[in-house]
């Protein structure tokens, strides 16, 4: 008993002293880095974060520990990340909600409070219907919606749903938006024939598309997806709607540039790792590797386009 006590006190003192280790850019990273993930364990953001952390660790030279900080559709975690110490030991997985929540007044921090490190993932959205649905093209849905505003039922994976809002505002139509708790419930409702169509990430409907239970109508991307070359883009069909979700790494805005560079270097290398690339391919996540600079610009543009949608809401 006494030995254990001594050992415990010894270890307690040891861990306290190591916590005092001075943080500077030269010896960064001197201890493990924590990565705040603003969504819960088990979701897409969590999966990408855990895989990314695993492949970035060797390049950073220190372990990266995942810390799930959920709440407020990602707002809680990202605000906590923005307000953490700018020493590079707390980094944040930022998602598209960073561009939408602040404008809606649902998040205190915004993209100005972050320095972007690297964008790693961009998933364009895809429109799907049940295999035996009465709708066989996107045009049929839009035309029907123009005839009967607010009648066609849309399974929304989140509220507000910026995919459908973009289509509604672009084409000046309305749908009966029925909110579901995430993509799996929305796709089940479409498969069960309870709701006409849904818009999700391609990975979230891959299995159902392969098995033929769901039918893709269009992708909301600039170009056709390499994995689904037969599915037209909305642009090709004459609807100028491009939308999708993205995920990247960011640090508080006052973080020294030297530390940001070290982090960016590690994550840029991780994104190119063979294991990470195959993880993303298999999980139907799409790699979009953007440097700190172009990531910052990308967010500014996306925020702009989302703000326009929010103002019209």
């Amino acid at each position: 008993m006494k030995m254990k006590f001594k050992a415990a006190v010894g270890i307690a003192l040891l861990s306290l002293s190591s916590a005092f280790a001075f943080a500077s850019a030269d010896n960064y990273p001197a201890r493990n880095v924590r990565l705040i993930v603003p969504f819960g364990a088990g979701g897409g953001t969590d999966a990408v974060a855990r895989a990314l952390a695993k492949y970035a660790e060797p390049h950073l030279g220190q372990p990266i520990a995942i810390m799930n900080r959920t709440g407020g559709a990602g707002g809680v975690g990202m605000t906590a990340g923005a307000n953490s110490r700018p020493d590079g030991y707390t980094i944040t997985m930022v998602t598209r909600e960073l561009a939408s929540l602040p404008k809606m007044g649902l998040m205190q921090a915004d993209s100005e409070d972050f320095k972007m490190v690297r964008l790693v993932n961009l998933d364009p959205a895809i429109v799907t219907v049940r295999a035996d649905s009465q709708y066989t093209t996107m045009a049929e849905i839009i035309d029907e919606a123009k005839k009967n505003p607010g009648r066609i039922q849309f399974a929304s994976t989140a509220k507000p749903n910026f995919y459908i809002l973009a289509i509604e505002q672009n084409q000046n139509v309305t749908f009966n938006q029925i909110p579901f708790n995430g993509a799996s419930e929305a796709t089940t409702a479409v498969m069960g024939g309870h709701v006409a169509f849904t818009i999700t990430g391609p990975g979230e409907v891959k299995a159902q598309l392969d098995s033929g239970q769901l039918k893709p109508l269009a992708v909301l991307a600039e170009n056709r997806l390499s994995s689904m070359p037969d599915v037209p883009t909305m642009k090709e069909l004459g609807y100028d709607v491009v939308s999708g979700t993205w995920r990247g790494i960011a640090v508080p805005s006052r973080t020294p540039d030297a530390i940001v560079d070290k982090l960016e270097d590690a994550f840029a290398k991780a994104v190119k790792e063979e294991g990470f690339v195959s993880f993303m391919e298999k999980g139907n996540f799409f790699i979009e590797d953007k440097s700190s600079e172009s990531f910052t610009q990308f967010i500014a543009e996306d925020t702009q386009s989302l703000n326009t949608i929010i103002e019209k809401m």
Partner: protein
Amino acid sequence: MFELLLQGLQSTLQPSIFLLLLAGVTGGIIIGSLPGLTATMGVAIMLPFTFGMGPNASLAMLIGVYVGAIYGGSIPAILLRTPGTPASAATVLDGHQLVQQGHAAKALSISVVCSFMGGLISTIMLITLSPMLAGFALKFSAPEYFMLAVFGLTIIGSISSKSLVKGLISGFIGLAIACIGLDPITSTPRYTFGIMELYNGLSIIPVLIGLFAISECLLQSEQIVKEASQKALTFSHKLFSYPEFRKFFPSALKSSLMGTCIGAVPGAGADIAAFVCYNEARRSSKNPENFGKGALEGIAAAESGNNGVTGGALVPLLTLGVPGDAVAAILLGALTIQGIAPGPMLFQNSPDIVYGLFSSMLVANILMLIVGLAGIKIFCRIVEIPKALIIPMIALLSVVGAYSMNNSMFDVAVALTFGLLGYLLTKIEIPLSPIVLAVILGPMAETNLRKSLMMYEGSWSFLYDRPIVLIFVLLSALSLYSTWRIKRRIQSNTSPQLAV
């Protein structure tokens, strides 16, 4: 099919995979038994470790954690009145009562045997009836979810309460609390006062920890007698007997089947299944008034129900490619990382994986039974620790558990607030479990009622033109009737003064 299963079992029983499975089950039981660490979290944490393994080994490990964790949550629920995971909230009702009557080992043995039954039956149903169950799951839409929640809610007012009104007060407090957060349909903030942590509503785990564990510590610290507190307590080490087994077997069987069906429906997990099965067992019981006072069938129903979900949750994953609950979502991730697309093609493309998964589930449940039974003696030691030592342990563990769920001091504050609330409500004899039940089922009821109205464009006809909805309407009516019957019985058995 049988041959494939045999092959699957052969590969599962290879020493390397078997050891992983054993480690997974044991680790899962520990994860589940710690408040704040849930089955979902346990499986998510283990996922990156499986990146380098083969598909069978990877799934075996994750399945082991899943099965173990759903069971593990019941150990502290029974012994310490602290459910380790929300799935075990219904187990507290009768489990802890039995412990207070001195039957710790009996309660634990029923819990592990019924968990095993639930897991085993749901696995068998998963292997044999998957396509049928998937068809059932697809029939579920907003109206069905709404009535399922209503059926679960009809238990309010009758569980662990002498007074119907007090039970209802408790239930409605829970329903009110569940309104906090962004409105699920319109995203209007409700009762959030601009606090971002409240936008998603209160997390169920800190509420649970506060109401059950922290309030219990406050009560115990008041009732504790100095000298007695430092003595070791003793409990009967007797397991359940054969006549007792015959008594709870039917409700365990029924709950296993029900748990599997509820698990097969995406969006309803082990916590909901446990309460719905508990309610059904009470409704159909000959002695419903014993529920909440240490009824063996009560533990049996809750435990078979929540472990029954484990097999059911895999049904939509394997047949539709949609996860049935959060854990199945991570398994889906594990499958895709291995380059395997779940869905109906899986049975044709990689039957070895499917049957490897099935046999892992079978073996995981057997291992859970063995580890659980072997552990009873050790677990019982926990309640035999003198009160003065166990109180600080539970109290501090509760705070750490509330924190670790989401690394959030806000959750700690929530747990403490609900601890105080639970203590005060107990003082005026308002039961606490209806609050928990309402917090779990309330949002499901509200969201799906409003969704149904949207889908039916404002018409209420969904209440009678859908067959599954009608069944639940009938069951809810029967459940209310049985509550009334219990009240009548208590009234005629006791003096009128107590029969409020």
